[in-house]
């Protein structure tokens, strides 16, 4: 099986507008979805990302605050999964509760490995 990376964008803003009750419900849906991946042995790892950060460039001479992306383009978290193909990884992502939000979207990328060549 090949490894894939999910990058989640656009979920954070919406979550900050939820009531405590809605947040809890949303969290429960994530847990259910992730447990489903784990049970099939397809979940490798994943964590949310803090909204703050740094950007380093120009051979380390230029350091600026924060990710450049705003709102819907900000990466809110990542997940590493196992799947047989990009199509399968795509299909698996469709159960993600973040996709219930209009602005929520997932970028799916294959993680390259020596054996792929």
């Amino acid at each position, binding site marked *: 099986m090949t490894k894939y990376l999910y990058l989640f964008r656009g979920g*954070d803003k919406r*979550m*900050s507008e*939820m*009531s*405590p*009750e*809605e*947040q*809890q419900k*949303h*969290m429960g849906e*994530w*847990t259910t979805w*992730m447990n489903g991946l784990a049970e099939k042995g397809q979940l490798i790892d*994943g*964590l*949310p990302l803090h909204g703050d950060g740094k950007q380093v460039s120009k051979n380390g001479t230029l350091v600026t605050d924060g990710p450049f992306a705003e709102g819907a383009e900000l990466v*809110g*978290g990542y*997940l590493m999964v196992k799947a047989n193909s990009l199509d399968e990884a795509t299909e698996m992502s469709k159960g993600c509760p973040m996709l219930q939000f209009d602005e929520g979207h997932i970028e799916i990328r294959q993680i390259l490995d020596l054996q792929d060549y």
Partner: protein
Amino acid sequence: MDNFAAHNTLDHLFRHEYSRLVAMLTNRYGAALLDMVEDAVQEALLKAGKMWSYQPMPDKPGAWLYRVANNKMIDFLRREKKSVDFDKGPASEGMSTEEYEIEEEVIQDEMLKMIFACCHPSMKPSEQLMLSLKLLCGLSVKEIARALLKSEEATKKAIQRAKQKFKNEVGELVMPRPDDITERMNAVLQVVYLLFNEGYKATEGEQLMKQELCDEAIRLAFLMLNEPQCNTNELNALISMMLFKAARFPARQDAQGNLLTLEYQDRNLYRKDYVKWAWHFLKRSSDFENTTIYQLEAAIASYYTTAPTYADTNWKQILRLYDALVLHKPMPVVKMSRVVVLSKLEGPAKALAAMQEIEEDMKANQSFQALKAELYAEMEDWNPARYHLSVAIRQADNRTERRFLEDKLDTWREKE
């Protein structure tokens, strides 16, 4: 009882943590910083919601949240360059989650002070209700608007006004002084009563949301039982009344979501555990000497809920209780409820005659018109019956109720 009171704690963990954290931080930092406290708690919950989506929840979610929210508070205060007394309690950032574990008793004590603060005499009962929904029940503005059938804009403004008074008037959160406790308790009980009735009344809106208001009212009342000064006959009677009524919840709607009146409810569905506890609290309330309004209302609810069938309801006893209640609480709504009972015992004509007294106050009320229609129908006097029913339909402010009345009118059309 502990199990009974705690039956939905995990279900509403976030909402209840919101109220506990707001109470703890407001106790610590003072009422004037309420906005900042709410922001800190909101951020802590948001962080938790993200983290716990990816990872299992820690063993002590409350302590974890308190640590995060408190650190946020310190952050905010530093940013505003306000001096903080960091020595007061566990306020340093380096502390572990375990050190944030606070005894349940202390939290309940702080919740109690917060209940009194939300029912501060500087606010009107309607403002106290709004603030309690926001701060003690952890509902969002949107949810409050939905539960109270008000616009979001109006709800937001009302809450802001109430918060302003809270910030200006409450100061440090304390238990009321012994001289004031009776008066302050009355205000709290009134808010609990209002909260319960908002949930219980048969209006449109998501039934689930409404039922949760009732659960919240019961939860707040249970919180007060822990404090000896608050454990009065009024409180016990109010709890009893709420439980007798809440016992009927599972039977209040048919499969299509239509509201069912007492007459048509399947009494086998009533919650027996609620009824059992309702009796317990009614008995406890009678350990005290004086009779109170809440006791009369609890007793009335007990007769309605525990009658084996609608036809077997003990109307005689209920009427006697209403006679006493009208003396204590001479309000048109109470008088109208009494009329319903009167009609069962002495017939519709007598009941209609008794309605004249409240005609002026109540004629704009759809329940009043619907009751009149019902009484005329009982006498088979169909023209006035249809007339009052159509007035009630025009006055109905929600779809469920209107549909219910329109269906009835359809069956009356051909009658002569």
